[in-house]
């Protein structure tokens, strides 16, 4: 199985549902519509042998108005050693994505982490709550409106890290 064959198969089956094809560094990438992400993944799992979810995370693109948050799935066909990346874009006001936990059990904690950091609401997730950050946290820290070096943080001693301070 090569990227070309896979792309051809997927295009035939899903047509317009898959757009923005890309192949950076040899990794086939496609954008999938929000409501078909599970159908595509189920097909890939059953028919194409993509049975391993390597990674699931999100990216915040503040400049893409109306589709600011992007959920990224990395799938792996372990038999043919082919990888595939799927992207789902959702608006930041209503970041609802269907959960992949029914297909990949490993998605459970990864989706919790993505929720924890980006606030993606995984519809149908069995236990969607924070996993890494403290439960009291009331914002989603990896969104870009929070600058990289949070100036309000007091838990980092800048003196020891060469960022200001007196040394």
């Amino acid at each position: 199985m090569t990227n070309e064959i896979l792309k051809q198969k997927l295009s035939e089956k899903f047509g317009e549902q898959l757009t923005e094809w890309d192949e950076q560094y040899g990794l086939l990438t496609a954008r999938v519509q929000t409501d078909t992400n599970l159908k595509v993944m189920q097909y890939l799992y059953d028919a194409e042998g993509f049975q391993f979810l390597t990674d699931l995370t999100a990216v915040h693109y503040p400049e893409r108005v109306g589709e600011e948050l992007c959920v990224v799935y990395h799938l792996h066909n372990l038999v043919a050693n082919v990888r595939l990346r799927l992207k789902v874009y959702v608006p930041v006001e209503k970041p609802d994505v269907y959960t992949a936990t029914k297909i990949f059990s490993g998605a459970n904690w990864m989706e919790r982490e993505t929720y924890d950091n980006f606030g993606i609401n995984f519809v149908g997730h069995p236990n969607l709550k924070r996993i890494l950050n403290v439960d009291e946290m009331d914002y989603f820290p990896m969104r870009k409106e929070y600058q990289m070096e949070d100036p309000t943080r007091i838990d980092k001693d800048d003196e020891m890290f060469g960022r200001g301070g007196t040394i």
Partner: protein
Amino acid sequence: MGRPVQYNTNVKLAPMPEGYSGEGFMATSFDKVVGLARKNSLWPLPFATSCCGIEFMATMGSNYDLARFGSERMGFTPRQCDMLLVAGTIAKKMAPVLRQVYLQMAEPRWVIAIGACASSGGIFDSYPVLQGIDQVIPVDVYVAGCPPRPEAILDGIVKLQDLVHNESLRRRNSPQYKALLDSYAIQ
């Protein structure tokens, strides 16, 4: 014919404290004796959460043999231990647990932060990780490294032994010590 048993003649004895001695008696200050005894029988409580913990396991294993320094046995109950060794990344969620362990230890108690993570958060400049355990409990000795080698951990313990040896018996009743604990909101 000599017996097959070999006795270890290379035993290191702690030097006798300064004092006045005569036939059948010795007079010295209480500080020195207590310091000597405490120093050479520190009970370690390992609090190992990640990679540095592995180095600590090597330290207490037979190659590096922490027991040579009087810390023969790891105690896994804070009630019996006086040296808390925090080895590894402490998540903010873990911080209350660590604090609880510290509170459960009886005075006098000492803390060693092993590795960059325990000392400062290390490479984890991130939201879920506590940026150094001295945010929640007072620390006596910091061991640098990511991870520190067992030699470095032993060095830290020897440094702590120096502190213990020279600590005045009244230190823990002093206003400075109370202020230190107050700054951590520990009564």
